[in-house]
């Protein structure tokens, strides 16, 4: 467990200590910033123009205006490229430099290596998306009202948050495992339970949010982004375990990622309701976002696809490492 935590720490910090992580973050924020600006214009438009689902524009699913369509193509073209950038070095670099031998002979299981690598890059992927939460006040027309409603429940919630932060610090400072887990669990319990009772039992709340625009598409979209990201990252990790060159790993993972993107181009060709369209919808991640996630819906079809492909790719990655050990 300790070895896994160490490996996660090492891999996660590596993203922040190399320029590649920042380059990826810059490109990602530039792209999402442009999409947000497109949204901003539509949400403050004059006359009979606008956007019904702002997240559809953010995640490249809007058909109009034409600029949103172009931005959508750009977004989904770059999405597998960005996830490929995050995963290309994970195992390919180890293989290229030969450090994989050291890793394989270390007292750590193959699945733990794969888990740690995936966890770290998935964590960085989440971090990449965190700045986009700043867009929410506009995307949901969100307004917050603060009140000093300090009740036992609200205090428990706040203490819970603080304990979670300490747990994170404990994790990165390599404090004892029991302390890290203890702080995390107690903090999580206090935050969740305190938050629940504070918002259901207390007459006044520390902070009250009101959303002028339906917030459901926002959280469903973020859930979709998390799950789809996990799938693309797992795919990239598997590819990275097969090759030695990072460039080759990036290119192959980009190509494999496009298998889940390009079918969306065929949606114009098939009549909705036909088997052809259903197959296109099944495979096409942009179509999942255009039709369901960004419109406040959750469809079990893409969720099952993302989860199973993620697990399958992680399984294959473990097998890939095992096969190397067998040679």
């Amino acid at each position, binding site marked *: 467990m300790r070895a896994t935590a160490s490996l996660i720490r090492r891999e996660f910090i590596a993203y922040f200590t190399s320029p590649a992580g920042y380059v990826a973050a810059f490109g990602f924020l530039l792209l999402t910033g442009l999409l947000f600006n497109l949204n*901003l214009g539509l949400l403050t*438009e004059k006359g009979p123009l606008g956007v019904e689902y702002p997240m559809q524009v953010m995640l490249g699913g809007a058909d109009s205006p034409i600029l949103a369509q172009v931005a959508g193509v750009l977004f989904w073209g770059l999405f597998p490229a960005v996830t490929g950038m995050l995963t290309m070095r994970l195992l390919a670099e180890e293989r290229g430099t030969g450090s994989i031998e050291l890793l394989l002979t270390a007292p750590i299981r193959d699945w733990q290596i794969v888990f740690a690598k995936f966890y770290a890059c998935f964590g960085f992927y989440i971090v990449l998306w965190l700045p986009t939460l700043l867009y929410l006040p506009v995307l949901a027309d969100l307004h917050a009202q603060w009140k000093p409603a300090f009740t036992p429940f609200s205090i428990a919630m706040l203490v819970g948050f603080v304990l979670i932060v300490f747990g994170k610090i404990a994790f990165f400072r390599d404090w004892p495992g029991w302390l890290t887990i203890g702080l995390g669990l107690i903090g999580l319990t206090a935050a969740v339970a305190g938050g629940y009772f504070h918002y259901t039992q207390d007459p006044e709340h520390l902070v009250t949010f009101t959303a002028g625009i339906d917030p459901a598409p926002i959280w469903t979209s973020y859930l979709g982004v998390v799950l789809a990201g996990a799938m693309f990252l797992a795919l990239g990790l598997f590819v990275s375990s097969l090759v030695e060159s990072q460039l080759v790993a990036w290119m192959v993972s980009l190509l494999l990622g496009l298998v889940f993107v390009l079918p969306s181009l065929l949606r114009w060709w098939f009549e909705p309701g036909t088997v*052809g369209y259903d197959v296109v919808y099944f495979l096409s991640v942009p179509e999942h976002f255009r039709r369901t996630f960004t419109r406040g819906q959750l469809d079990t079809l893409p969720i099952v696809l993302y989860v199973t492909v993620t697990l399958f790719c992680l399984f294959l990655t473990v097998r890939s490492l095992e096969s190397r050990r067998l040679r």
Partner: protein
Amino acid sequence: MTDTRQRTTWGTRFRFLVRAFGLTGLFATVIGAGLFASEFPSPSQWTTQTVQAAGEGTHGPFAKVAAWTLAAGVVSVAIALVVELLSGLLLITGRRTAASVSATVGTLAALALLVFVNAYSFTHHRRLDFTRDHQFTLAPELAEKLRSLRPESPTTIVVHQMHQTFGSLTDERDSYTSGAERKVTEKVKDVVDLFRELGPRFNIEVLDTEAFEYNRQLDAITKDAPALRQAIESSPENSIFFFANDRVQRLAFNEFLQLDKTASKEANSGRGNLVLLPQGVENFARRVLAVQERRPKVAVLVVHELLTTAYPEGRGRAFTMAGLKKALTTHGFDVTDVVLKKNWASAGSLEELKPAADTREESTLERLEGALATAADETAAAREQAEIFGQIRTRVEELKGRPWAERSALYARLVRGGTVTEELEPEVLASLQRQFNRADQILIDARKAQASAEAKLRDALSDERTIEGRRITDVKAKLTRVLADVDLIVIPRFTVEDATEGPDVAASLHGISKEQADVIRDFMLKGKPVLALLGPISSRTGPATDGPDPLEKLITERGIVLGNETILFDGEAAAFASRRAGEQFGGGVPTDIPPLVLVETPDGKTDIKPNPVAAAARLTARSVDQKLDLRARALRPVYVAPWVSAEPRFAAEFVQTGPDAWNEVRPFPQVRPLPDGTFGVTDIPRFEPTPLDDPRKGTLEEERRGPFPIGVAIDGPSPAHWSDDRLAPTRIAAMLVAGPQFQKLIAGALASAQSNRPKGTSSRLIVFGSGNLFSGPKLEPAQEKLLLHSANWLTGREDRMPQASQAAWQFPRVEMTEREFSLWRYGTAIGLPLVAVYLGLMVTMFRRLR
């Protein structure tokens, strides 16, 4: 340095060959598929039969090459895959360790699990709706009904954009209408997606009349659906068509999502938005579920063929109800005519007209018979005249060469005593010859007219239903039978179009018989609705002297009071005055009159529900951001009785005149001889308030200024005595006269009669105080909308009327100042990426420092 390359063996060579073969096959498959797609672009054409036929050269050499390339590629890939699979099995069963075999089996098992789980998910997935207003969730009962649709009879839904959003109301197009069109098309697709999840099959097609290949698309869609094509071609506005089993239902865009242009312009503090009023997914679903539904049938009851819905031939354009028929049939009704009087051809006076329940064809037949009789009479007269001229001609011929005295005697008779000299004889003979020719020509013309009339009559007689209908002499039975499958009766009584011109049709002409009124009463008792259009009843000489006819009595008993006066507008008083001055005698520039006012709720009465027809008309007006310009002259006041207004379901009086009007008992000026011997216009109508000592003062008959109600809608029970004759007022009166032995019975009857009237079946009734509100070959847009809303409400089709019961849809907007906007714009487009750059540079510098 050692060579790190693998050693080349026969095995590696074979593996290379197989993989090269497979890769080439894959390449050939892609090329072949591309070529094949260029020949067969539709996915439905991609069948093994098509590929086989193309390979045999049925579709030409190009398709043959494409099919062979595709087939060869697929076979190559298949062979390569089989070889790879076999070599994999050999490896497993050969020198691999048990561990590697178990790893391979585990991988295959995981792959199988992945495929199985996703295959199951593909066929059993569910969509969960978390939107705030559950916009992607159908009501359970609606979903249940849609599930019951048979999948083997698919419904084709055609979204037809003809860039005409408001039918006849306006053809103005702007950014609001085009925005609404786009959004409606999107929403229709969303709804159809929802329906598809329930199982039944739906095909959706979007047709745009401005698209390049519109006609080709239309031909393709309607190839086996002529009814659909006819519906599309006769559609007056952007519409959604539902087609299944050769039946078509139409839904206008506005019946699904109605544009509120007024609200759109006012939204966001005047900056504008697109505001659409949802009319309910149920409305949409109902068209799918009721695609086989019968169209409501409307019967137009008139007294003469000229007043029917037939398109006028020459004269009668003002009287026809053709515009009404066109508007109703276009919007989903069937219209039929019933002519309530006959014997027009032979009647010498109004009293000789007979009650009838004829179809228009029967009435036409009667007219044609009359025309034939007249033509026969004219032919006989012409023949007689020709015979006389023939005798004269013979006599003149006989006298040729005879002495002048004999000839002059004949000529004197022929010129009726005039003097004829011998010098004038050639002129007389020439004149006679002209008269002979003229008589011959008249006879020829009369014979032609008779032949034509006979031919027309023959045509009319060829319709067996018409002949059969004529055989029924029992008017009541016949009218009952005619109205059996009718859903709405319309009774137009055109009397006056313009008071300054005088009456057009005598009100008494429209009177119906007691037995006909009984049928209409029974119709209402069944809960069926009536739309009465009653023009003023004033005659040229003054107020009507006849009492109300049986129909008016029925309407009065339902709780509607019909005024006997005619409403005139102030502008018309000026016209009368100018006419007296001779400026407009015999016609001239028509006077302008103010528009009628639609009233949802009376002023100050907020506790009354809005009138549904007026509310719908208001929403319609808002959809084009204009007021409905409804104008009519020579109106009749129509009031709701106090006992109805005491317990209103909604505001009953919903159409009013403006205040610039008054009610006139003598609405027509008289042309009388003047003291100087000439004729002049007298009795010019002008407003003269009823004096205080006049008994009419304080009653509805008091001459006063407007506004006057001229449209009333009620929805309530029929009078008790309609269904129970013991409660008839005449019977109660008879019992009162009969004596005290009936006291108990009288008390019971009176109590029952007084204790409201909710004994009969509830039905709807609208009365307009205008006989020609919906007359003419084409209705004005405002008239058409009022008619449609009235007809839809009367027939219980409220789903076809604009509603604002659901929250309006509009694009979400975020309010912010210019500064906030700039901060958000630059902060997110430049600020956040710069933060990433800044942190990256800091980390790089920090690492260099270490």
